[in-house]
């Protein structure tokens, strides 16, 4: 079986052949012998050419290798070819500022309709006793402000939309 795995900005072609408990793997043409050992819960030990790596499944598209986190996308090689052949024309018009941490909104510095410039402060968030100013990463107009002063927010919450 052959897959294309996307990780960060890299793409790997991985061909696999299962041999009992082990796998013969070709990564971008290079041959490797792999053994997968279940450790505990979602944790595995992967022996690649006798080198042990601690692999932990964090989510469907996220795993950890020796405590480093990787976001992965696995595509069947055939499907990958089809996608590449089809034209794509998506480009994002909106910038959605999301909370990078849980915390408390101390101050909202802009209103809907305001023009903002790159690096202009939009909000002040406090968490773990430190105040952090959240800045706009580009020029634009504030389309929506989704939080208000005094509100508690979680990591990933939408805060401000700029277009």
């Amino acid at each position, binding site marked *: 079986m052959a897959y294309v795995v996307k*990780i960060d900005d890299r793409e790997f072609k991985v061909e696999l052949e299962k041999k009992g408990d082990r796998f013969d793997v070709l990564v971008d043409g290079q041959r490797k012998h792999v053994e997968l050992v279940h450790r505990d819960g979602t944790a595995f030990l992967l022996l690649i050419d006798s080198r042990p790596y601690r692999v932990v499944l964090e989510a469907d598209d996220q795993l950890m290798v*020796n405590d480093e986190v990787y976001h992965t996308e696995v595509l069947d090689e055939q499907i990958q070819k089809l996608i590449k052949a089809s034209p794509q024309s998506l480009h994002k018009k909106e910038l959605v500022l999301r909370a990078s941490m849980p915390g408390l909104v101390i101050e909202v510095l802009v209103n809907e309709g305001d023009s903002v410039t790159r690096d202009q402060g939009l909000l002040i968030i406090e968490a773990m006793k*430190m105040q952090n100013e959240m800045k706009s990463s580009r020029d634009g107009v504030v389309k929506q402000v989704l939080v208000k002063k005094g509100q508690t927010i979680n990591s990933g919450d939408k805060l401000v939309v700029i277009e």
Partner: protein
Amino acid sequence: MFKKILVANRGEIAVRVLRACREMGIPSVTVYSDADKTALHTQSADEAYYLGPAPAIESYLRIDAIIEVARTAHAEAIHPGYGFLAENTQFARACEKAGIAFIGPTSAAIELLGDKIASKKTMTAAGIPCIPGTDGAIAEPEKAHHVAQEIGFPVLIKAAGGGGGKGMRVVRERKELQSAMKQAMSEAQSAFGNPTIFIEKFLEAPRHIEFQILADHHGNVVHLFERECSVQRRHQKLIEESPSPIVTPELRKQMGDAAVKAVKASHYTNAGTVEFMVDRERNFYFLEMNTRLQVEHPVTEMITGVDIVKEQFNITAGNVLPMQQEDLAMMGAAIECRISAEDPENNFAPSTGTIQEMILPGGPGVRVDSGVYKGFTVPIFYDPLIAKLLVWAPTREEAIQRMKRALYEYSIRGIKTSIPFHQLVMDHEKFVAGEYDTTFIDRVLKKIEYRKHYQEIAAIASAIGRSLSDRRAAAGSPLSREGVNPWKMAGRKSMMRRM
């Protein structure tokens, strides 16, 4: 010795002090907020009393409630840890008034040294060099502009009420002054319950080197050598070590003598830290004196063998210091990395959540002071410091190698931590060479490319997971493809576990 001690703090430092109580056979009491019902410190004491809601202002900063707990539990002494009420004159005074021993200096000494201006006058009078700055607290922007103009930009705004980088701002231009003051005052209020700030000349690229001291109530003062604390990010110490790579035996003697003189000039007792700025020509300036146990005190414990917390108990109980300066010697080298619940790959954003797995490093020369455990949910309300990792080795070179090994072993899942950041520093040639100052991190490691060693391994692991699921689907299993993927099964079990 005291029959019972109350530890009025949380996290790793409360656990540290409670360990000293247990080793000395002293029954211990602690306090907890709503967010800390299952915290490690709550479990580590002999008695634990509820203080109030999670925000510190409603719990760990409540002087009345803490004194009340001490009375209820019949605690004879209170250890304040660091942060919260550790350098709060009102708290020390409330203890004195209630007849409870405060494990730290007298309220008068806290007041003098907490007033960074008055303390500088005292030090100048004692012949210790100081950094130029305001001769009083400052609140009006006009006055601040005037002072800044006088001593010249860049200037440093600092909170009069505490340390740790909170309420601190560097201002390089006049126009930034007003907003920086406002933010600093707001942060200082929130962190120390005191918005007072002052202004000081900002030294370019200095080293931050401090001396640990111990002083008893019988006039004996010793210093326990220096700690180099120049690895800072936004005035927050991240890594400390001893000996300092730049302190020669002669400089050590001079600075140590100055530290002891500073203690005597301020009639200080108990454990404390005299902080100095050192410039490139190795001139040193008195910066301030921390009238508490420092986060980084274990660095000194590892190179001297002295248990600083136990000595605090002894001093407060009126005992004579068991050592004199000539009994003390530095052995080997120690390094501390502060492990915080922050994501270094995302501008050190706080990272809270439940700790899913925790593997602590061990073996020779490794010390871990942790305030968390697997299963604990790190609250958003307090300082992000969750643990301190320390190593000792005969030489600095070996200590760095050992720290790299220990950081490699240390594994925390569920939250992001500063471990990858420390790994980068330990590999950095400037750190390895000992050539760094307080601007090192913000200057050199501002935009860090975190290492991604294992992309290929992750690709192989992902492809194997997918192939196992594809194989079963092809074999005509009645279950859906997703249902038989062993990786996904494992993931589900893991989800259930979290419920």
